């Protein structure tokens, strides 16, 4: 990092402050628009108002996979260039991804129970999403288990890449499995015969949630960056030399205790 002059520091701070304002503002606006669109869209013929959960469930599912893809990309970037920012992005995206994956699963349950009478359907996409949830949890658990930042970044990056490559195979196997046992009624939120108004509302919500994802990741990134800064400053304060923590023993201490 090059030393920054007072003017450039101020410029960076201003840029960051600017980002801090427009992204939340845009997100809030899009979310409000999304909510309005979801409410304005016509209710489903069969499921009624319950079907409006789709406007949250589908974007959440989309984000779960987007976050996973971002973690994959950031992991590759780290393995390529070893930039700490890439590692922070992978971690931030994974954390946000866990949230949206969990949300997808819960909403799927809430939607499913009144419609099909069961909390869980073995729809292949839902199953894969559940497995994705566990993959994320494993990723975050691995990060938490490694103390050294470089080792943590390296191992997490490898897992981020390997997991992403494996998930399509997992999904394929689940899809094949379910096509053998598919019941006639199936969760089909992305039905191409969807009503135009509904589709429009869905797209608006997709955009809104993507903005929300970006906002959450950006905030998490900032937090991670500040954490790393703090750690770096703390480490600089410690005696950097080996052996400085070890001093010759003081046998007088035993006599003092009496």
């Amino acid at each position: 990092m090059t030393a920054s002059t007072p003017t450039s520091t101020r410029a960076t701070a201003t840029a960051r402050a600017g980002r801090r304002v427009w992204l939340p503002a845009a997100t809030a606006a899009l979310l409000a628009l999304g909510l309005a669109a979801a409410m304005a869209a016509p209710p489903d013929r069969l499921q009624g108002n319950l079907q409006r959960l789709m406007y949250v469930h589908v974007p959440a599912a989309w984000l779960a996979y987007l976050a996973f893809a971002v973690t994959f990309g950031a992991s590759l970037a780290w393995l390529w260039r070893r930039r700490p920012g890439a590692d922070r992005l992978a971690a931030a995206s994974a954390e946000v991804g866990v949230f949206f994956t969990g949300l997808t699963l819960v909403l799927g349950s809430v939607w499913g129970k009144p419609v099909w009478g069961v909390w869980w359907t073995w729809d292949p996409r839902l199953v894969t999403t559940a497995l994705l949830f566990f993959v994320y949890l494993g990723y975050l658990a691995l990060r938490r288990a490694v103390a050294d930042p470089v080792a943590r970044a390296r191992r997490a990056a490898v897992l981020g890449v390997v997991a992403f490559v494996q998930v399509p195979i997992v999904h394929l196997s689940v899809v094949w499995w379910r096509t053998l046992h598919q019941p006639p009624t199936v969760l089909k939120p992305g039905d191409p015969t969807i009503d135009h108004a509904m589709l429009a509302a869905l797209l608006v919500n997709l955009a809104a949630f993507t903005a929300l994802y970006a906002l959450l990741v950006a905030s998490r990134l900032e937090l991670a960056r500040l954490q790393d800064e703090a750690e770096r400053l703390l480490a600089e304060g410690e005696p950097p030399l080996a052996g400085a923590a070890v001093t010759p023993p003081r046998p007088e201490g035993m006599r003092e205790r009496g």
Partner: protein
Amino acid sequence: MRAEATAPGWAGVLARQALEVAAKDVRVEVRSGEALPVIVPFGAAALLLLPIAVGADVPLLRQAGWGMFWVVVLLFGTLVTVRGTAVDDPAQRDLLALLGVDPAARFAGQTLASALLLVAFQVLLAPVAVALYDPGLTGWRWLGPTVLLVAVGLAALGSLAGMLTAGLPARGTLAPLLVLPLSVPLLLAGTQVTAGAAFGRSPLVWLLLLVAADLVVLAAGVLAAGSLDETTTR
């Protein structure tokens, strides 16, 4: 002394190193008496517990028999592979690194050793499942290749997870967590081969999926071995 990557005998050197590592791992595991003498009874006990929990209804058990076998193979087989990756302690890893053992060769060797142990594990558990559940034995011919392919895939996943969690105190529990979600194709292929055979469906497509899944994990492991080797990277 150590062959460069472009030397013609390089693949031979890697293969030889992998075989030495595999032989060493198998010998150590067999003598430590943990992989098979402990985990096989553990798996057999699990197979016994399931009907106690879900009901000893013979038609139900017949239908679910192979599925239960494959689930136990997956859950407990993961323990076998994770144990196998703990054979080397830091001093031994340093020694292997100094002897010029390529990390990819070490991965391949560990995977081979775990795969052999897993084949033995499945072969020992299968009669227990057959005895307890009386599932159909039609299509037993497909069982052999399936056992082999599941063993290789699970071993590779286990070795990969072992590399990712090497040296961590939480390794024993974290590695299985990493393996299980990604091992679902193995589980599905195993169950579909045995179930499909009962209905006269050709299991070829599932065997192909198994081969593809195995190849992907093996490739990932070989590629990752170099990146994860802490004596060569920063």
